[in-house]
């Protein structure tokens, strides 16, 4: 494996909650504790595992036994909820903090970008900050000087370059800060949520720049809450939950699993029957697979039962987008037979969809029913999660918001 960019083996990081408290604590408290601590250490020596510090409630593992590998030229996304250990992992990879257990091997120069504008000083001018920030991020002076014009042009701050940055608008400040960072070129780039800054057009520019970075064959480790950005930029992903690695593989698959894990299985399909009326129950209602990949086939299942015989005049499944706009309707009257239930016989419907041409995102599914007993629109029964396929073009796709609702299936011929 000479193409390896980084290898992480059994990485763990333990934080002492006590250490956090001592942060603003005074020496006096600590003197008491320092008398106690050696005693605990001695006690720990006789404990089974012989570890130096007792693994008590005062400490917690922000990261535990995480192992993965990344080849050169691959972009890895790290997904997981807040507190899953994403930031801790990035901090270890960028050497800001040391792991408690395990090891990391890095086969290349690492540049990390955990914050935009680290070390910027408001009293200094744009020009001065470019050099200072560049040096902090590990660039050589000559390298910064060479890229200076490019950085200034990218940030669009030519006219203010000799103005102290405290007079910049927040947008200008962010643009300048990102511009410096974007011109960093280590072999392995570690990035945290950097895209969450600036206006939409600048975000697009950043995304484009980051796309360039990955296509140049640079190795990237990327954390973001923006799953679209992760999918656009990364080919592989790892999934963290409570400090542990719970998934590792292709980005589409991991994002899907993450969404599923987040919603909980219960919401993707009904976990218990829902009473529509006093007599009617919805026993099954949902799509499989869920999440589904854009353009892929899927099926819909419905199962209803009624305590008494019942004829249904209208039955339809409605799909709403995140803005509660109605996107589609599946008319179940097209089943060809009258929709009837008797006391014993359940109504079971199985709908096959050739493909789902929806842009990635979360959709809500509702049921419309009109019978001799009731007329009802039951909203928000389940969520349907649509995720995009791995991007194969050599460009960065537009964000989901920009692409509307329908993902057309097309090919382009060129004469």
């Amino acid at each position, binding site marked *: 494996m000479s193409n390896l960019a980084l290898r992480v083996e059994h990485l763990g990081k333990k934080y002492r909650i006590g250490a956090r408290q001592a942060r603003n604590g005074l020496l006096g408290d600590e003197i008491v504790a320092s008398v106690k601590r050696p005693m605990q250490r001695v006690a720990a020596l006789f404990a089974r595992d012989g570890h130096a510090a007792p693994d008590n409630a005062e400490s917690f593992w922000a990261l535990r036994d995480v192992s993965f590998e990344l080849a050169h030229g691959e972009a890895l996304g790290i997904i997981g909820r807040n507190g899953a250990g994403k930031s801790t992992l990035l901090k270890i990879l960028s050497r800001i*903090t040391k792991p408690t257990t395990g*090891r990391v*091997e890095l086969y290349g120069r*690492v540049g*990390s970008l955990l914050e935009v504008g680290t070390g910027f000083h408001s*009293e200094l001018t744009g020009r001065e900050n470019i050099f200072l920030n560049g040096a*902090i991020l590990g660039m050589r*002076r000559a390298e910064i000087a060479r890229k200076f014009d490019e950085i200034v042009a990218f940030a669009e701050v030519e006219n203010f370059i000799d103005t102290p940055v405290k007079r910049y608008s927040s947008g200008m400040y962010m643009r300048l800060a990102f511009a410096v960072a974007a011109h960093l070129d280590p072999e392995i780039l570690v990035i945290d949520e950097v895209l969450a800054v600036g206006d939409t057009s600048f975000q697009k520019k950043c995304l484009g720049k980051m796309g360039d970075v990955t296509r140049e064959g640079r190795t990237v480790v990327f954390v973001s809450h923006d799953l679209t950005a992760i999918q656009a930029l990364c080919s592989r992903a790892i999934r963290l939950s409570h400090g542990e690695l719970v998934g590792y593989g292709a980005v589409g698959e991991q994002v899907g699993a993450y969404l599923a894990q987040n919603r909980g299985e219960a919401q993707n399909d009904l976990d218990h029957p829902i009473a529509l009326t006093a007599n009617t129950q919805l026993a099954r209602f949902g799509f499989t697979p869920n999440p589904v990949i854009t353009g892929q086939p899927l099926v819909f299942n419905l199962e209803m039962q009624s305590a008494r015989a019942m004829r249904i005049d209208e039955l339809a499944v409605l799909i709403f987008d995140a803005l509660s706009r109605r996107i589609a309707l599946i008319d179940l009257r097209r089943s060809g037979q009258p929709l009837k239930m008797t006391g014993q016989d359940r109504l079971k419907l199985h709908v096959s969809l050739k493909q789902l041409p929806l842009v990635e995102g979360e959709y809500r599914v509702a049921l419309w029913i009109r019978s001799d007993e009731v007329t009802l629109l039951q909203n928000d029964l389940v969520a349907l999660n649509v995720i995009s396929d791995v991007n194969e073009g050599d460009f960065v796709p537009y964000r989901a918001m920009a692409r509307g609702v329908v993902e057309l299936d097309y090919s382009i011929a060129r004469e």
Partner: protein
Amino acid sequence: MNATQSSLKPARERATDTLADTPLLVIVPDSQLFHLNLREVWNYRELLLFLTWRDIKVRYRQTVLGAAWAILQPLTAMVIFSIVFGQLAKLPSDGIPYPIFTYTALLPWNLFSGALTRATSSLVASSNLISKVYFPRVLVPLSAMMSALVDFGFAFLILIGMMIFYGIVPTWRILALPFLLFLALAAAFGIGLWLSALNVRYRDVNYIIPFVIQVWLYASPVAYSSTLIPAQWQWLYGLNPLTGVIEGFRWALLGTSWEPGGLILLSALIVAFVLVAGLVYFHRMEDSFADIV
């Protein structure tokens, strides 16, 4: 089997292999007790300069008097000491006019105390940097100290003016000055390493430091001559490395009768010890800076 084969490969081929197969960097939990990666510090020398330059630039921006503050401070101290200790208390000054006698001592003293104060608060002041970027942490107290050296430079210009005024001609002894300067800085650095690392964990240090500096000032021969100390206590007095440095300054610049000899050697030894211990302690603590700062 594989291992044997690879070790039998021609040297050149092995060398290219090593490039691709050995990690450039390995991150592991433990670190050695003493490990000052000088090469890494050297690789980051530009950052050291930039941080120093930032400190200097920012310090006097938006001040009316700017760099004049670097001169005003020792000048004021000199005037006060001259009145209180020179005129009122009439302390002996070895035949040297009292103002220049005390100003010559104030230079290394201010260098030391300024460097120490700034180094101590440096890590906490740079907490945003420490928690977001990696670089050798030792650069932070180091760069904070460097800006004190610039202040020293400005204040030294005044000393040159005073030497001309009092008609004092420097001798070959002035060659010892860089060494004494280095000793003062090394002392500040050694103690600064301890205090800055401690300050990350216990903010008490911030409150202690002005007090320590004040006591130390009177424990050093700044306002008086060390000849005032009884002979049987000279050895104890000499444990303060600033004694050697300050008397050394007077000896080198003003030609006082004090002989460096054993005292300066003792100072150098103590400074060396403090410095090494400071580096060890700092290194032991630096891995946790980002977690607790």
